[in-house]
């Protein structure tokens, strides 16, 4: 009965609460932890609305993250295709099979070249006859129209630009009529990849802004619904930081759960596409495999989700709370 009294001079509270700095810190940490769980509980109580918000955030995050994974996979694919590039050296008609073979052997030892293979004019004709239905027409020609060819495989480590230089160099050789490299499609692929990569950043930025607005709006409605509670807390002497805290934690939960949904969406896509894609890539040499998000990238996505949720909340909550004053 005599407990809650005010005898003018404010008595100090128990030693557990204000006495030591450590006690205060523990109480502060406990109140944060409690707040974190309470805001999760609040999300759970209105789980349909929360789920919808989280799903929207999840899809918004999954789109740019999915593009990122796509670019990553296409990059590996492109570089493995790049490794299978070959340069064809068409020799002049007057170069004999022997000197052609010699040139091929010489080139094999040169810088930037992995291997060479000489195909004589006769051998070329034989292969062509086998592979096409022009056999009879070619017989009618009498003499062999095909030149000797050297197939040059550049070193795998050679970047595309250096391959281009190599082609120029080789085409200047005395015996070489012209050098051909069907690299145009590879350049286009690289350009397309750069475009998709850039697009994924642009889409990522736009959808991040969308996440900010989604979280901000959700929190705004949340604050509006709890107006009376906020007024009461202000009357009881709650500061802005105290009132803001549960809302910021709600934002963090929205972002985190949204990022988890995004990861689940990506895993689902991975599983749906993985089978057919591996059949496709198996048809190319070198058995390419589809890679999903790595552990580190998943953690990054979670961090981005949390940061967006927090920021989306922070930009609305101050303005909203300042507008609520007890009357």
């Amino acid at each position, binding site marked *: 009965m005599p407990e*809650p*009294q*005010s005898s*003018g001079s*404010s008595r100090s*509270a128990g030693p557990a609460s204000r006495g030591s700095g450590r*006690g205060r810190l523990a109480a502060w940490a406990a109140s944060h932890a409690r707040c974190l769980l309470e805001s999760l509980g609040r999300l759970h109580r209105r789980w349909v609305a929360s789920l919808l918000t989280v799903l929207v955030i999840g899809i918004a995050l999954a789109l740019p993250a999915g593009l990122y994974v796509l670019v990553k996979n296409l990059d590996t694919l492109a570089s493995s295709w790049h490794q299978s590039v070959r340069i064809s050296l068409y020799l002049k008609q007057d170069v004999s099979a022997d000197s052609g073979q010699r040139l091929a052997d010489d080139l094999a030892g040169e810088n930037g070249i992995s291997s060479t293979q000489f195909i004589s004019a006769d051998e070329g004709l034989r292969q062509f006859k086998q592979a096409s239905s022009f056999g009879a027409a070619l017989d009618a020609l009498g003499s062999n129209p095909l030149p000797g060819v050297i197939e040059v495989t550049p070193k795998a480590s050679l970047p595309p630009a250096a391959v281009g230089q190599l082609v120029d160099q080789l085409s200047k050789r005395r015996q070489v009529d012209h050098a051909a490299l069907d690299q145009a499609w590879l350049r286009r692929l690289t350009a397309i990849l750069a475009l998709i990569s850039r697009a994924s950043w642009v889409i990522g930025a736009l959808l991040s802004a969308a996440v900010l607005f989604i979280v901000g709006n959700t929190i705004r409605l949340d604050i509006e619904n709890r107006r009376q509670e906020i007024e009461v807390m202000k009357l009881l002497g709650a500061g802005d930081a105290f009132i803001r805290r549960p809302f910021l934690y709600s934002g963090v939960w929205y972002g985190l759960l949204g990022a988890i949904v995004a990861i689940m969406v990506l895993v689902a896509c991975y599983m749906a596409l993985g089978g057919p894609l591996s059949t496709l890539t198996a048809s190319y040499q070198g058995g390419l495999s589809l890679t999903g998000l790595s552990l580190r990238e998943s953690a990054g996505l979670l961090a981005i989700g949390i940061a967006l949720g927090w920021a989306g909340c922070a930009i609305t909550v101050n303005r909203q709370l300042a507008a609520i004053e007890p009357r």
Partner: protein
Amino acid sequence: MTDIVAFDNVVKRYPGGKLALDRVSLRLARGEMAFLTGHSGAGKSTLMKLIGLIERPTRGRVVINGTDLAKVRRAHIPRYRQRVGLIFQNYNLLYDRTVFDNVALPLVIRGIGHTEIARRVRAALDTVGLLSHEKKFPITLSGGEQQRVGIARAVVNRPHLLLADEPTGNLDPDLSADIMRLFTRLNETGTSIMIATHAIDLVEHMGYRRIALDHGHLEAG
């Protein structure tokens, strides 16, 4: 400084021109309990709002427990309010929390450790006779019980001053008398209390000072 409340020539004019308080000067001594009476619109609520720093005076000086409220900047209002226990006509409880959590709120706001909170909340609930109801939700309680939760919440922080604005406004006479007896008991333990009420018949025989307001003017003090 013996007065817990001191008003000096306080004028409050609301935007729009309505004069709510006109040169009001009054004192409440430390440990005193007084009733603030008057018809509705007489300025009782305005006077309470000035003490709670919900409104600022147009002119004049309000000093609470030695603090000149004009010098309390906006950022320091929360800390100031922690030392004033407010009790409302409509209780202002949070209905999604238990009785315990409602009473604990002022202590949670101040960042007090949970063992200390539990001790103080139980003591406050014991004072208002609701110790066995701590796990219930306010909606399951009667009006009188809800107001006692509100009082427990106001005293749990050991405030310098208890302010009650029409605390029995929503209660029938028997329950109102109960609540008034509770205030008397709290006052006997040394708490300064100011109670705004228009239930004059309820308080006139209680023997406490009555501060009467009429159209913003002080009638007797």
